[in-house]
């Protein structure tokens, strides 16, 4: 028997090895270029499987060295290649004397004087050349030289900067991130014009070679957290990164939770604000969603508009959001608890009205609520997935199914419909989809506990949720900060939002020691002297 076990283990090992091998075959050959142009072109064709979007443009002239430009169609800026590479080469290079001896010379000339581009690099190994080629650069191969000139010609079709779809605001900038990492970085840089805004780029994904950038303010971001983020990003070993969600799931602190421990946003202004608080933005090529670490719970209730509106309004809206989050969590559960266990809690007339409605309903409150909640979730999911033209049909059908038919058929009571609708509206008003969706899940736990133990069950699940929230950390920062652990100087941006002139400190647990955000005496007020007034003092206001 033991032998068998042994063999099994061996087999497993070999499988692991095989997987590793499979991954490594995706690696590009790490060989040097040859000095024959023909061979190089052949090799390039071979490696790319002679793909049809690989464009090879041979530049030949009399008494002239053989040059070949290679690029991938669609990834490059065609106009740039025509004007600044091909045209300049034709225009600038006259027949060269003693070509065979002076090839190196010529190559250097092309590198230094002819190619009119901001970024030209020399590579002599296939790996870098192919990587740059796939990234949208143009490779210039010269006959007889075993080094390639790589010209940055990235371009092609990208979506232009538009208003973000998932985070709309009434007041505030209208630009949103796009799928291009360069655009996204520049959108942030335009907002924080400071050399201390550092960007580190790396390629993640063995096959996809996706660019991932870390962006933070040096001197304000906590170095330990920066190092931790870098370490976690570097340790990712996966074939593909197609969206920032991949990264999020690979670097979060705790996987057994429904709460998001990384924040994601489509808005450059929100990202800039977070970077200014000492957080780190992780930008992934190919997606408009930028990750922000570390994230705390209250952050998911902060919409950018809070900071643009005046503080009294912003504070009331924060309160409203916390309230709606609570409603979206416990409203159906409370209804179940009240109708099954604690009828005495409700004013007598109301409970009589509710029980009169419920009289015709064949199910217990829990089943009724579950039925409606699940119906609603199905409708919501269908509404998201369907093409826009059909989407409105779903909402009409849904309104009819939920609103009227079910009540008339006596399957659910009208009160239940109200509860489910309120819950739904409440969950829509949470600014972050990520936290709203986790509330959707936990709601069912609350309903179950309310059905079995009434308010006691709700309280237990509530405390359970609190303990769980307190146990979470995001890159070492406690999730419930600054409430637990309490840091009084940062409480101004939690359930309340203090006036901007009172935001003297950056978040203590997130940032560096450099926490001072604004100078003293920022509170505005009327001028000390009345000199701004045009009328004389003794005339009073009325004159």
């Amino acid at each position, binding site marked *: 028997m033991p032998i068998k076990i042994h063999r099994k283990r061996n087999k497993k090992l070999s499988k692991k090895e095989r997987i590793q091998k499979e991954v490594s075959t995706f690696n590009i050959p790490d060989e040097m270029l040859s000095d024959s142009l023909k061979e190089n072109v052949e090799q390039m064709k071979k490696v790319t499987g002679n793909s049809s979007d690989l464009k090879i443009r041979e530049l030949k002239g009399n008494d002239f060295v053989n040059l070949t430009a290679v690029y991938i169609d669609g990834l490059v800026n065609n106009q740039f290649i025509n004007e600044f590479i091909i045209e300049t080469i034709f225009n600038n290079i006259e027949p060269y004397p003693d070509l065979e001896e002076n090839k190196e010379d010529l190559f250097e000339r092309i590198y230094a004087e002819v190619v009119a581009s901001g970024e030209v690099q020399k590579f002599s190994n296939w790996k870098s050349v192919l990587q740059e080629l796939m990234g949208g650069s143009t490779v210039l191969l010269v006959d007889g030289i075993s080094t390639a000139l790589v010209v940055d010609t990235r371009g092609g079709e990208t979506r232009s900067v538009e208003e973000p779809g998932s985070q709309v605001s009434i007041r505030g900038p209208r630009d949103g991130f796009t799928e291009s990492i360069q655009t996204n970085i520049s959108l942030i840089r335009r907002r924080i014009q400071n050399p201390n805004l550092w960007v580190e780029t790396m390629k993640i994904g063995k096959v996809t070679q996706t660019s991932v950038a870390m962006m933070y303010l040096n001197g304000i971001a906590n170095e330990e957290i920066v190092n931790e983020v870098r370490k976690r990003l570097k340790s990712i070993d996966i074939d593909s990164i197609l969206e920032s969600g991949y990264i999020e799931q690979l670097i979060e602190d705790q996987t057994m939770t429904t709460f998001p421990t990384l924040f994601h946003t489509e808005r450059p202004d929100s990202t800039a604000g977070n970077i200014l608080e000492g957080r780190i933005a992780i930008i992934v090529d190919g997606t408009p969603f930028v990750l922000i670490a570390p994230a705390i719970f209250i952050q998911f209730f902060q919409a950018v508009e809070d900071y643009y509106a005046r503080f009294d309004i912003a504070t009331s809206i924060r309160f409203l959001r916390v309230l709606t989050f609570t409603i979206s969590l416990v409203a159906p559960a409370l209804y179940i608890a009240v109708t099954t266990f604690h009828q005495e809690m409700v004013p007598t007339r109301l409970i009589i009205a509710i029980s009169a409605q419920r009289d015709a309903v064949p199910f217990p409150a829990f089943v009724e609520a579950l039925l409606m909640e699940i119906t609603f979730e199905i409708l919501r999911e269908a509404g998201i997935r369907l093409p826009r033209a059909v989407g409105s049909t779903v909402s009409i059908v849904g309104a009819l199914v939920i609103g009227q038919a079910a009540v008339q058929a006596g399957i659910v009571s009208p009160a239940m419909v109200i509860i489910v609708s309120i819950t739904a509206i409440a969950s829509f008003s949470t600014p972050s989809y990520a936290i709203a969706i986790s509330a959707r899940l936990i709601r069912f736990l609350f309903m179950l506990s309310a059905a079995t133990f*009434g308010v*006691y069950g709700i309280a237990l699940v509530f405390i*359970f949720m609190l*303990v769980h929230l307190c146990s979470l950390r995001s890159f070492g920062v406690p999730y419930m900060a600054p409430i*637990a*652990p309490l840091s009084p100087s940062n409480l101004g941006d939690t359930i309340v939002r203090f006036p901007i002139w009172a935001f003297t400190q950056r978040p203590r647990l997130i940032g560096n020691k450099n926490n001072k955000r604004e100078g003293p005496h920022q509170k505005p007020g009327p001028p000390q002297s009345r000199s701004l007034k045009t009328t004389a003092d003794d005339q009073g206001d009325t004159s």
Partner: protein
Amino acid sequence: MEKAKIDAVQLFVLIVLFELGSAMLIPLAIDADENAWLAILLGMAFGFFLFLIYHALYKYYPDMLPTQYMQKILGKYIGWALGFAYSIYFMYASARVLRDFGEMLLSVAYRETPLFIVNLLLMFLIMYTVYQGIEVLARTGEILFSLLYLFAITGFILIVASGLIDITHLKPVLEEGILPVLKVVVTETIYVPFGEMIVFTMIFPYLNNPKVARKIGISAIALSGINLTIVMAVNITVLGVDLTKRSQFPLLTTIQSIQIANFLERLDVFFVLALIMTIFIKITLYFYAGVIGMGNLFKVEKVNQLVYPLGLVVLLISVSIASSISEHIKEGLKVVPILLHLPFQIIIPLILLGIAFLKSKKKSKGSSASDA
């Protein structure tokens, strides 16, 4: 001991929540009739004294759990046995509070539900919390603290607004002199809730700044003592002494009598919420102390491995501790204070402090002699 630190604010809220837990709900010191508030305040004064004993011990051994320093003070074997007894005592106390809670819940809302199930659910929550460690418990405490005070202040305003308070219920003051009050202090309020501070000897070593322990402890005891006094005074002014005495949970009866605008009435739910929040902290702290003590005595490296087995033990003890609620209450009033609270909360700490004092004196003498 786990590698964790809590800060001053967290210790403060834990102490306050712990002291309020269950003490806020029961007819505390009602044997002193109209003078219950005075009995609580006097109990608080003795509570300061007890706390200073515990704190003095902590000052001698600031990074050690009591289970460790008992072995230093009394020698390896006696100290170990005493530490073991303390761990058992903490677990027994947590089982008692759990039973209290279960019985309360059954009599308030869930008459048909088996006690075991009610206790099981809360115990699961507590085991989960203790498994997460003291830091998580402390952070949860901070949030529960603010929620509790939100409820308390709202409740107080509602009681005042509904015009229920009748100050004459508190009169006459000291009708039969101070002696009956002192008797209540000595037999009841010293132990519950103030002597229960003994559990914090297990928590002090986690404090990140040992210097503030005394200030924090004193102010937390003062706040909780004053709050308990207010609660009891409100209960008596609203219900009168007789009704308070007969009521199993006077605070519940008080809350039930709130009636405003024919809408805000029957606010029992707030009582249940406050009850669960404070009791949760109380049982968790007791249980945590027991688990940490056991882990320390038996040199378990990962203490939270002990949580689930010991949790089940506490759960079973809580159900089998007494056959009925009256038996349970009788034990709690007559047997436990004398047989358990008095030695564990007062006598043993005093003896330990005495020996520690003598030892340190001898040591300093020895060191000064060697210096010379």
